[in-house]
């Protein structure tokens, strides 16, 4: 293991990769703290860059953005009373009242410190779980793979949709889009309407960019020039809290970190659910639940630990199974393919040096994130005034460049536009978006393995459901259908807390 870490360090050893981590963290924090922009937007912005950078440098940049964007939003949540991103909503509950009480420095210090702790917990989860999960998945048969895809899709639908039927419908849409082009089993071209550019299917990256970037451009353009007051009266000494306070929060910190990492593992939900659920659990298990929402440090601890712990968690299914849990990891999957890595359990063994390089990059990103936020708050506060009407069109241009450059053809820019329109319509009609993406990614995995499994069993259905892994996965699928609504209830409760807090304030 240590030699693998050494290899990881070697991979990360060159200056370019280290510089990219720092650059990524900077971009991530900046995009995280500006309301309306987020880590996904930052990733789309640098996408063309990631194709041409050496593999390790490209992923160092991505790791930096991921870590930075998760905690950057705490700055605006505390100083602006607007969460910079959905993953910092719960930070605002107590962070903002703390700032108004004159404890902005303490709130910021707490947020930065516990983001760091959260990332460490997520990292540990990634480090210890991804290997074992991959080694289980490596022995999967065709039928097991089909059930795994089925399980992941069920989870996404049940977790990300308020309306189950609508979630199912868009998942079908994603599946159908993924079937376009040559089928993997027999090479038959289908559903292309004679358009040869579609023979190889729709590329993941343009589809993702379309669904996200175009909609985001339009949504963000609506939200600007909101009048805001920035709390500027603060000083940070150390991290602003005492050793006694730290000891008091240890339980809260560990629970929130584990909750965050666990939610990260689940596909379809991420930082935005994690911080709310962790906050709600922290509040209900605390000795002083009445203090939450009035500017209590524990609220910031719960939210910021959980959202950063999510990052490590979300990468477990990506690396171990090749299944991304959210948009960010879905784009990462696309970039992995651009760099010739075949996502799936084999990556862990075949490209162990790369995976350990990522581990090292994550740790570095984590350290840079603390330093950058601690010393750069004034700079980032100034960034809050970044003119979005200039930035968003430039992001649009770069996202098109990123799409065209994948296969060197304009056709993929049209895919961006078409999926952009689909995304806007779905958004207007209140459809959840994540099931489309997961349907799109899991479609080929599910269909190909189902067809192969049926061929092997000569059409018999029993062998498809009698394997041990298959039975376990089917059980997990049923379990997730039962448990998902309870998790959503937690989130809804936490959101209600927010409204109550805001009324009080």
């Amino acid at each position, binding site marked *: 293991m240590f030699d693998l870490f050494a290899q990881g360090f070697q991979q990360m050893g060159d200056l370019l990769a280290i510089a990219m981590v720092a650059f990524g963290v900077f971009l991530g924090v900046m995009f995280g703290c500006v309301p309306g922009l987020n880590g996904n937007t930052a990733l789309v912005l640098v996408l*063309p*860059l990631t*194709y041409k950078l050496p593999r390790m440098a490209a992923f160092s940049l991505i790791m930096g953005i991921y870590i930075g964007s998760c905690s950057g939003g705490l700055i605006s949540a505390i100083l602006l009373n607007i969460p910079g991103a959905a993953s910092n909503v719960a930070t605002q509950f107590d962070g903002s009242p703390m700032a108004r009480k004159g404890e902005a420095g303490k709130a910021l210090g707490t947020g930065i410190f516990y983001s760091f702790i959260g990332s460490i917990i997520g990292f540990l989860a990634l480090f210890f779980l991804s290997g074992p999960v991959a080694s289980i998945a490596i022995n999967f048969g065709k039928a097991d793979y089909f059930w795994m895809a089925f399980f992941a899709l069920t989870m996404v639908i049940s977790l990300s949709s308020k*309306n189950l*039927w*609508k979630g*199912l*419908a868009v998942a*079908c*849409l994603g*599946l*159908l889009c993924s*079937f*376009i082009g040559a*089928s993997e*089993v*027999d*090479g*038959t071209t*289908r*559903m*292309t309407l004679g358009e040869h550019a579609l023979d190889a299917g729709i590329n993941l990256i343009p589809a993702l960019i379309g669904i996200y970037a175009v909609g985001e*451009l*339009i949504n963000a*353009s*609506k939200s600007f*020039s*909101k*009048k805001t007051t920035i709390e500027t009266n603060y000083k940070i000494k150390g991290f602003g809290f005492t050793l006694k306070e730290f000891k008091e929060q240890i339980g809260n910190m560990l629970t929130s970190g584990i909750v965050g990492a666990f939610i990260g593992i689940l596909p379809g939900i991420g930082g935005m659910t994690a911080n709310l659920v962790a906050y709600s659990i922290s509040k209900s298990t605390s000795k002083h639940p009445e203090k939450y929402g009035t500017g209590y440090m524990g609220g910031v601890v719960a939210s910021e630990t959980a959202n950063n712990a999510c990052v490590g968690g979300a990468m477990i299914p990506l690396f171990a199974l090749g299944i991304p849990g959210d948009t960010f990891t879905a784009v990462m999957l696309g970039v992995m393919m651009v760099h010739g890595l075949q996502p799936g359990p084999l990556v862990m063994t075949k490209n162990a040096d790369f995976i350990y390089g990522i581990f090292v990059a994550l740790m570095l990103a984590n350290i840079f994130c603390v330093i950058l936020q601690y010393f750069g708050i004034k700079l980032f506060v100034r960034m809050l005034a970044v003119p979005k*009407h*200039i930035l*968003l*069109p*430039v992001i*649009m*241009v*770069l996202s*098109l*460049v990123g799409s*065209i*450059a994948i296969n*060197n053809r*304009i056709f993929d*820019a*049209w895919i961006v*536009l078409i999926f*952009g329109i689909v995304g*806007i319509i779905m958004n207007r*009609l*209140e*459809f959840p978006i994540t099931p489309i993406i997961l349907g799109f990614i899991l479609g080929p995995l599910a*269909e190909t393995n*189902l*067809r192969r499994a*049926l*061929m092997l*069993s*000569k*059409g*018999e259905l029993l062998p498809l459901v009698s394997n041990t892994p298959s039975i376990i996965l089917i059980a997990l699928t049923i379990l997730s259908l039962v448990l998902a609504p309870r998790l959503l209830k937690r989130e809804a409760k936490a959101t209600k807390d927010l409204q109550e807090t805001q009324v009080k304030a």
Partner: protein
Amino acid sequence: MQNNKPKKNFTDLISGIVVMALAAFFYWTTIGTKSFMKAGKGRLAPDTVPKAVAIAMFALGVIIIVKWLINTKQGKIAPAEKEDDSANTEGMTEEQIKNRRLFQKITLPCTLVLIFLYILLMPEIGFTIATFFFLTLQITLLSTDLSAKSWLKSLLIALVASVGIYIIFGCAFGLAVPKVSFIDLGLSSLYRSIFG
């Protein structure tokens, strides 16, 4: 703008129709698929799964509409929400607010048309010129300000950004963006003569 009669919420009715239409469209695309593989026991044809998913999706569309009908009859659906932008308009004059509302309405269609034209024209007029025009218009549109000063600002930013992006991604990174116009080619050869 207070309206006492709650507006009926048609979101789910339209959703159902859209789902059914898309499902029908995808089903249609699968018709006439010819398989290279011989049929046999346990061998699904390449269009079996897509067809099944399309039929399921159609059924989901029907369910969404039926649920909408039931919920509307029982009065369970919350009326359509109006967008509240009062927080954003504080301290603005009547005319500015009117202006803002107008821009909010046209931003979406205009942006889509601009992106459409941008992609359409890029292979014809080259990356730099297409990007320059796209950025100028899009930045001006989003700035909701049509004064001469604002245009000039957008123009300058678009100029710097389009040339900058072309040099960084088209030349330095060698990404395949359409290099057509004399400006693209000129910038490329300029880049080569400086950096080799």
